[in-house]
């Protein structure tokens, strides 16, 4: 799997290169600037990109801007955004375009190598990876009338993992219960929140996050 990395700090860029090479990726290019990133994407057509939110020149959200531009040029280009903090908007525009293959993870997640690699691969295959921290921030009921408050603790767990972009199989493994039990939970959640059911994991994330951000 070929990957393009955009990260301005040499220390982290070198670390990411090593980590991804070590776990069987081919690093086609590793750059430190949005312009260089767009060039690299044009040239290498990677299977997935790993992009830092903060890139020069202003270190605000150039990473997200560059990712949006790259996906405008190559629709559906899988991109995983890395961020130091969960920011309020966490690349909402990226998630909103309807194509899959988007991820938003805290940089800390690289410590859990197998989980991180699984997220990169999921995004590469057109799936979704939303950071648990970002989801947790959204999973707070606004008040007693919020339909979220009607979810049981177990349903909340399922909702959390679903919003992170995991498949039913992964949720089942993560929670240690059967897949059919997960399917039942999912259908209850969609019923309680009055959401349209969807089989695609990405559409499911979209529905769930859109609901959470309403």
């Amino acid at each position: 799997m070929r990957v393009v990395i955009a990260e301005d700090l040499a220390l982290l860029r070198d670390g990411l290169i090593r980590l991804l090479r070590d776990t069987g990726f081919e690093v086609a290019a590793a750059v430190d600037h949005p312009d260089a990133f767009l060039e690299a994407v044009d040239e290498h057509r990677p299977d997935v990109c790993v992009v830092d939110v903060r890139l020069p020149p202003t270190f605000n959200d150039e990473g997200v801007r560059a990712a949006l531009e790259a996906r405008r040029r190559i629709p559906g280009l899988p991109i995983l955004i890395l961020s130091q903090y969960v920011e309020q908007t966490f690349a909402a525009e990226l998630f909103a375009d309807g194509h899959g293959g988007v991820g938003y993870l805290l940089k800390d997640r690289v410590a859990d190598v197998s989980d991180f690699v699984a997220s990169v691969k999921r995004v590469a295959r057109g799936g979704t990876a939303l950071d648990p921290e970002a989801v947790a921030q959204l999973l707070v009921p606004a008040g007693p009338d919020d339909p979220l408050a009607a979810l049981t603790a177990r349903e909340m767990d399922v909702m959390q993992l679903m919003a992170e972009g995991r498949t039913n199989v992964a949720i089942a493994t993560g929670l240690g219960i059967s897949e059919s039990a997960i399917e039942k939970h999912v259908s209850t959640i969609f019923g309680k929140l009055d959401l349209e059911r969807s089989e695609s994991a990405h559409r499911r994330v979209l529905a769930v996050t859109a609901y959470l951000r309403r």
Partner: protein
Amino acid sequence: MMVRMRPILRTFWRDLSYHVLGLPATILAFTVVVAGLTLGVTALTVIVGIPLIGAVFAVFRWNARLERRRTAWALGTPVPEAYRPRHGNSLRRLRIVAGDPQSWKDLAWLAFAGSFGFVASVFAITAWATVLGTLVLPAWYWTLPNGGADFGLFRADTLGKAFLAADLALVAIPILFVLERWKTEGMVRLGRALLSPSREAALAARVQELAATRAGAVDAASAELQRIERDLHDGAQARLVALAMDLGLAEERFARDPDGARELVGEAREEAKRALAELRDLARGIRPSLLVERGLGPALTALAARSPVPASVDLDVPDALPAPIETAAWFVVSEALANAGKHSGAGRVLISVGGLDGSLVVEVTDDGRGGADAGGDGLTGLRARVAALDGELSVSSPRGGPTTIRAELPCAS
């Protein structure tokens, strides 16, 4: 009755010198007012006259400034000056100047000084010259062409009459002194009233000044916060992420490649130590600890000693540098050394620091292969840090080397 001569003499000299200074000053004011008004009114009739009117106002202000000094001299206290702040293009500035009541109060005083003030000065000088001359008339009456001085009621053509005149002059001294006192006092007060700002204008000027300094302080504080956030983001936080990454990789590797894993753990430990050191530095007044304890010179020497590429230092660090300048200089050298170690393949680095025209100049040159990317590798962050202090960072790195990173940091506050 005890008459204290000293203060009276001092007052006499002050009043008299006010008028002696007044001779050239009032002639100047007269010239300025007449010439200025003539020019100004003429200029009003043509469009190209606008800069001319501006110049006329500038001359009025300059003259008013001189008059403020003369008044302050007679008064013994300074006469404050406050004009409305000028901004925008020249037309806008002219409008502000013309709309400033102080401009017209200045002109009123100049007109007064140029007319009545001149007469008052001439009178004061002539009167005192006559009285003092008459006082010593017995010594010189005989040198006069007609054998004496004509006082109307009598002719002082004998020694006796000369003494009589001198006695009269003696009587005239206190009278003239009191008259002159009143006149001078009146003029000086009028001058102060016209030349110093009204209470409102003075308060407005003060508010303006405070708002400006406050805005400056807020800017500085928020710039400092931004810098701290950058230091954390690029420093300790990044190191901890790298450390976590190394540990994660090591965990994966243990089963199949224990030696490789051990190496990664070793690197992780080094990274942890560096992160700890950076956090400690940040905590300690947000500056590298050696900087705080020893100052820039020793801190840079220590940095050079730790450099991965052998570094020599040529330091001529000026005394009493502002703390942010020292910190920025330190970070420039630190980043440049790190870059030289990572990318350049250099065998030697020269760090030179010295003062030049009120700026601190920091230069780091390596003998590596050059071709450094000025837009990346932390150089951009460094540029922002230097720019926050109104400084300039330049990178020269032709292919084949050498690479020079140079920062100029203005020290004047």
